[in-house]
C-alpha cells in the first residue's frame, strides 16, 4: 500500500518525508486511506497484462526455444543447453553480420546526429521565414513507408541504370557497383536510414533548443560570442540530454536493422544480405535462419537473445559515456566555483 502511494506521489517523495507528512500528503492526493487500495493497480493493469503477454512471455519463451534443437517445420527435437550460443561464437556469418550491423550503425547514427543538430540550429533561427513549412517537411521522410524508401534508393544505387552512377559517370568517373563492396553497400543502406530519421532527430533537438532560455544567448552575444561559439558553448552542452535520448533510440533501432538491407538486396526476399554477406545484418540473419532453409528455429532464438544482450550493452555504453561527461562537467564546475571563491577572497 505504501508502495502505491509512493508511486502515485512520485517525484514529490524525493526529500524522505517523515511519517505524518506522508500520510497527510496521501490524504490530500486521494482522500481517506481506506478506500479501494487495489484501484490504482487496476488502472495500470492493462499495460502490464499486455506487456507480460507480448513482452515478458515472448522473451522467456524465446529463451526457452534457444536452448533446444528446434526446427520450424519438424518441431522440437532435444534440449541442448547453451550449444546454440556456443555455436554462435564460432559462426563466421554471425560475426560478419555483427560487424556489418555496427558499421551501418556508425555510418547512419553519426552523420545523422551531426546533420540533425545543424538543421535544428538553423530552424531555431527566429529570422527564418516559413519555418513551419520546413519543420513539417522534415517529418515527411519519417512517415514514408520504409518499403517505398528502400525501392527508391535501390534504383538510385542500381548498378546499370541508377541515378547516382549516372551522375558519377557524367563527372567522368567509373560507375560504382554499390551492392558488391562492403563499405559501398553500407553507405547505401546507411543513407536510407539517414534519409528516414534525420528529420525526426532534428525535431527532438529543435524542441530541446527551444527550451534553452534566450537570456544565455543574449548574454553571450553581449560578451562578443559569435554564432559558432554560441552553438558550441551554449546549445551543445545544454542539448546533451536530448542527444543522449536520440542516440540511444537510434542505436537500439539500428541494431534491429532489417527492412533496408532485405529490400536493398537483389532479387526477391533474399535474406543472404549480398552475395558475400557484405550487408547481412543480425536481424536479417536471424530471420533467414528461422524462416528459410534450414528452418533453425532454436538457433535463430539464440541470435535473438544475443541481440537483446547487445542492445542492453550498447545502451549501457552510451549511458556510461554520458555519466563520464557529467562527472567531468561537475568537476569543472566545482573547480570554477572554487576559483571564483578564491578570487572573491583575494579581492576582499
Amino acid at each position, binding site marked *: 500500500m505504501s508502495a502505491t502511494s509512493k508511486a502515485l506521489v512520485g517525484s514529490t517523495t524525493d526529500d524522505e518525508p517523515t511519517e505524518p507528512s506522508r500520510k497527510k500528503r496521501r490524504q490530500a492526493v486521494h482522500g481517506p486511506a481506506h478506500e479501494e487500495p487495489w484501484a490504482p493497480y487496476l488502472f495500470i493493469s492493462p499495460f502490464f497484462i499486455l506487456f507480460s503477454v507480448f513482452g515478458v512471455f515472448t522473451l522467456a519463451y524465446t529463451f526457452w526455444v534457444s536452448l533446444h534443437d528446434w526446427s*520450424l517445420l519438424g518441431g522440437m527435437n532435444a534440449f541442448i543447453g547453451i550449444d546454440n550460443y556456443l555455436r554462435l561464437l564460432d559462426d563466421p556469418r554471425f560475426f560478419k553480420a555483427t560487424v556489418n550491423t555496427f558499421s551501418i550503425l556508425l555510418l547512419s547514427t553519426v552523420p545523422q546526429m551531426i546533420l540533425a543538430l545543424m538543421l535544428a540550429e538553423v530552424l531555431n533561427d527566429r529570422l527564418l521565414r516559413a519555418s513551419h513549412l520546413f519543420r513539417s517537411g522534415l517529418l515527411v521522410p519519417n512517415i514514408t513507408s520504409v518499403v517505398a524508401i528502400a525501392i527508391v534508393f535501390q534504383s538510385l544505387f*542500381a*548498378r*546499370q541504370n541508377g541515378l547516382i552512377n549516372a551522375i558519377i559517370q557524367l563527372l567522368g568517373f567509373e560507375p560504382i557497383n554499390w551492392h558488391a563492396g562492403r563499405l559501398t553497400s553500407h553507405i547505401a543502406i546507411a543513407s536510407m536510414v539517414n534519409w528516414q530519421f534525420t528529420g525526426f532527430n532534428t525535431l527532438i533537438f529543435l524542441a530541446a533548443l527551444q527550451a534553452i532560455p534566450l537570456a544565455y544567448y543574449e548574454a553571450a552575444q553581449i560578451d562578443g560570442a559569435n554564432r559558432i561559439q554560441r552553438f558550441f558553448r551554449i546549445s551543445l552542452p545544454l542539448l546533451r540530454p536530448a542527444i543522449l535520448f536520440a542516440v540511444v533510440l537510434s542505436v537500439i533501432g539500428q541494431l534491429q536493422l532489417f527492412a533496408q538491407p532485405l529490400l536493398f538486396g537483389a532479387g*526477391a*526476399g533474399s535474406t543472404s544480405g549480398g*552475395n558475400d554477406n557484405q550487408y547481412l545484418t543480425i536481424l536479417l540473419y536471424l530471420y533467414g535462419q528461422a*524462416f*528459410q532453409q*534450414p528452418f533453425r528455429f532454436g538457433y535463430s532464438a539464440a541470435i535473438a537473445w544475443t541481440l537483446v544482450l547487445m542492445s542492453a550493452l550498447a545502451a549501457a555504453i552510451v549511458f556510461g559515456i554520458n555519466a563520464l561527461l557529467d562527472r567531468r562537467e561537475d568537476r569543472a564546475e566545482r573547480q570554477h566555483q572554487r576559483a571564483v571563491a578564491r578570487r572573491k577572497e583575494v579581492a576582499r
Partner: protein
Amino acid sequence: MRKFTPIAALVALAVVLAACGGDADTGSDDSGATSDNGSAAGDGDQITLNLWTFGNFGYDELIEEYEADNPNIKIETLIQEFDPHHDALITSIAAGSGGPDIAAAEVAFIGAFTNQADAFLNILDYGAADIEGDYLDWKWNQATTLDGSATIGLPTDVGGLAICYRMDLFEEAGLPTDRDEVSALWENSWEDYIEVGKQYSEATGRAFIDNEGLLWDAVVNQSPETYYDSNGELIYADSEQVRYAWDIVVAALEAEIDAKTPAWSAEWNAGMNNGDFAVLTCPAWMRGYIEDQAPDTFGNWDVATVPQGGGNWGGSHLVIPAQTEHPQEAYDFLSWLLAPEQQLRVFEGTGNFPSTPELYDTPQMREFTSEFLNNAPLGEIYADNALDVVAQNVGPNYNLINQEFGEALNRISDGLESPEEAWETAIANIDRELSF
C-alpha cells in the same frame, strides 16, 4: 508461378486486402454461410475449406463450380505474394494451428515439406495411388518420400524450360530469327549457346544473357541428380552436372556476355524493355511476366527450345497440412481441382502448364500459341520439353544449396573472387550450413 520482386510486396498487400474484402462480400451475400467463419461449427452440414495460394493459379471459376455442385462446401481463398505465402504456411505448421486446409507449395519448398511428411496429410491414405498415373512421374515424385510411403500433395503446373529471344535484336546482330533456325544454333550444347552469345555481343556491343543466375538454374536442373542423389545422399560437391553447370556459367562470365541485371530487380524489368539482353530462360509462366513488365516489346519475342532439352524451373503442388479438420473433404476437392479436365481449363485461362501428360496431345494444347511471342507454338514446345524432364530428388535443403552456388557465381561476376575461390567458398559454406 515463382518469385516476384519485393517491389510487388506493395501490390501483394493490395491483393490480400482485396481478397479479404471479396471474401467478406460473398459471406454476407450468402447469409447461411456467415455463421461459420473460423471453425466449421461442429458436425454442421456447412464446411469451409481454406485454400492458400500465391500469384495467379486461376482457380476462381472452378471454385464457384465446385461450390455449386457441393452446396455443403465453401472454399475460402487467400492469395498472397510468394514469400509471405510460404512464410505464413510454415509458421502455421510450426504453430500447429491457424493454417489452411489446402495450400500451394512451390518447387523450392516441396523438398523441405516432403522431408517433414508428418506435417502433411498422406494422400495415399485417401486413394491417391489410383490417380498417380495421371501426372508426370518426376513431378509426382517431388512430393513423395524417398521410400514411397507417403505423398503429401498433388502437382499443379510445371514450369518447363525454353529460351525466349528478341527477334529484332537477333536480326540487328545478323543472327537468324526463325525459331527453328535459332533452336538449331544451340540445340546440341550450352557451349554453342555461349558461342552464339559471343557472336551477338561482338556484333552489337551489348550483353546477350540477363544474368548468370537464370543460366545456372536452367543448366543445373536438366540433370536427374543435382544436389541429392536418388537415395537422398548429398552429392553437391562431386556431382558432374553441378560442376558442368558451374563451368558453363563461368564460361559465360568470362565471355562477358551477361548484362548483370539480377533477376526480379527493377533493373531486370527495365532491361527487358530496353533490350539490355537478348535472351531469357523461359519457363511457361515467364510469358505472363514479360507481358506485364515489357508490354511494348509485343511481337519482338519468339521462343526457341532449350539447349540439350529437358529441364524444369518452377511449378507447384497443392498440399494438405495435417492439422486440417476436414481431411476427406479437402482431398476430394483437391483431387477434383487438379484432375486433367480442370488443369486444361486453368491452362486456357492463365497459360499455367498442366502436369498431366494426357493433355499434351489434345488439340487445345497442341494448337496453343501466343500472339505476344510471335505466335510461337507454346503448347508443343513445353509439352515436348516436359516429357523430356527426368525425375529428380529435390531434397530438403535444395534452396539453401542453390542459393549458395548462385551467390558464389555472383561473387565471380562482381570480381570479388576467382572462379576456383568462389567454388571452394560455396562448398565450405554449404558444408557448414548443413553440419548442424
